[in-house]
């Protein structure tokens, strides 16, 4: 996010060409797209794995006879989601739905949301456990690159002034009003962007990997402290599920922001690296 092309000197009667800045370096772009595909595959295969036992527990153990805090189930004519004591009917989407061939199914998540589309725990695990490696290796390399390549320090580092509640509140209000930064300011990440990206890269994704490993009986033997960290294997499974949906929530906010901020320019910058600064308010585009 450094170099800016020198804009051509504005002349009368000629529209000012947009200022282009090199916003995303190659490592960011490559990781972004590999990671986007990887997380989609992990989510969809993960939903299929969840279908094998659509109940979540807290603690070390949990099976059908133990109390579950979340259940996706079905009655003879409905599907439902129960979280704690709150029960919502979800017929058509969760617990009871109709597949592409018109056959009614009672698996938790529907075929359009899972890999593969019809129930297959073995294949879902193959996809999930292969792409877990892609995620882990990619994230590790990206973290190292971000730490040593300057990305962390230059772009993601939250500066002292940015921590002030007033500054954060201002950024929240600006987002709520859909007033996004323009001109030079648009080349830099705002405080909410920084916190979101830091949260995903350094908190949510590591939690996904660590809770995934905590479900491994082999890893448990070598690193039993992981069980203590997350409060047991079934707690780790619950946290894995919650963190996955936190990533989905991030995805939707991320997409909404891309659409609102100008999807062509935003996506182009994540493909080519070059970002066109939106002109200052009042300036001609």
């Amino acid at each position, binding site marked *: 996010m450094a170099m800016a092309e020198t804009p051509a000197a504005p002349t009368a009667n000629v529209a000012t060409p947009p200022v282009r800045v090199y916003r995303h370096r190659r490592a960011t772009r490559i990781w972004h797209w590999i990671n986007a595909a990887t997380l989609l595959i992990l989510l969809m295969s993960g939903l299929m*794995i*969840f279908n*094998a*036992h659509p*109940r979540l527990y807290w603690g*070390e*153990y*949990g*099976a*059908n*006879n*133990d109390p579950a805090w979340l259940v996706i189930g079905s009655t003879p004519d409905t599907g439902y989601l129960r979280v704690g004591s709150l029960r919502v009917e979800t017929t058509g989407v969760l617990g009871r739905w109709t597949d*592409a061939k018109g056959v009614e199914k009672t698996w938790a998540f529907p*075929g*359009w949301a899972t*890999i*593969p*589309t*019809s129930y*297959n*725990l*073995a*294949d879902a*695990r*193959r*996809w999930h*456990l*292969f*792409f*877990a*490696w892609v995620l882990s290796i990619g994230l590790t390399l990206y973290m190292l690159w971000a730490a040593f390549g300057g990305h962390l320090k230059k772009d993601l580092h939250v500066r002292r002034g940015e921590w002030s509640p007033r500054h954060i509140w201002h950024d929240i209000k600006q987002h709520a009003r859909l007033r996004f930064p323009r001109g030079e300011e648009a080349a830099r990440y705002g405080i909410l962007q920084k916190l979101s990206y830091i949260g995903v890269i350094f908190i949510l994704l590591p939690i996904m990997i660590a809770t995934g*490993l905590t*479900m*491994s*009986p*082999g*890893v*448990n*033997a*070598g*690193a*039993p402290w992981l*069980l203590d960290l997350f409060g047991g*294997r*079934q707690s780790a*499974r619950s946290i894995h599920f919650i963190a996955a949906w936190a990533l989905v929530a991030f995805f939707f906010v991320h997409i909404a922001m891309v659409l609102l901020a100008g999807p062509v320019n935003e996506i182009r910058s994540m493909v080519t690296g070059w970002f066109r600064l939106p002109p200052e308010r009042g300036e001609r585009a």
Partner: protein
Amino acid sequence: MTSFTMPRRQLIARVGGLAATLPLLSACDAINEAPAVRKILSMGEEMNRASQRALIDRNALAREFSRADLSPIFRANGTRLPAGTAYAAHAASGFADWRVAVTGLVARPLSLSLADIRAMPQRTQITRHDCVEGWSAIGQWTGVQLSRILAAAGVKDSARYIVFRCADRIGDALYYESCDMVDARHPQTILAWALNDAVLPIANGAPLRLRIERQLGYKHAKYVTGIEAVASLDGIGAGKGGYWEDRIDYEWYAGI
């Protein structure tokens, strides 16, 4: 005219909607079925096995719990009652004539009765059982370490895997499982005959089941009738090392 065109329009809309989703979904499934894709995905299993063997102490113990941690009900899964008159007769006689054959690459093939097995030094462990489906249950198991049986039979250095033969038939074949020598000789790998201080229930694999604590539930063979030391898994079943591995491509290494 109207009555004729309306359903047709609806039909077109329907078919159009299906046509929009079906190719996408079937394309996804075609990718899933492609041999090259399956080969690449299977690298994940080998990476998991190799990394766990490389990074985790081969004798590292699965966590052992206290009696306070026991699941109130230990869920039984898979076969709950092997079919057939032979097993029923064994069950009726309290498994007095049950034998476990120890064969293959061993210096002294054995045929062990339950009395033989109970006469050997015993190990009791309270461990967590993790099903591949996602649930877990904690139970207390008592039995003999597999390493003692292998030592008694004089397993040869050429043995690379231990195959477990079972009495339960699912569909067309008897259940079986296998593991490498690291897990076979692991101190917590036992042939258990008791669960929670009671004789092992039939639903949980009576009279003997394998406990292989660092792997998922389907590796824990129930109703064990044979222990065979082999150099290769080729030619056993479909060659993938276990009943579910052969049929639906579960991972042979189930440490995750």
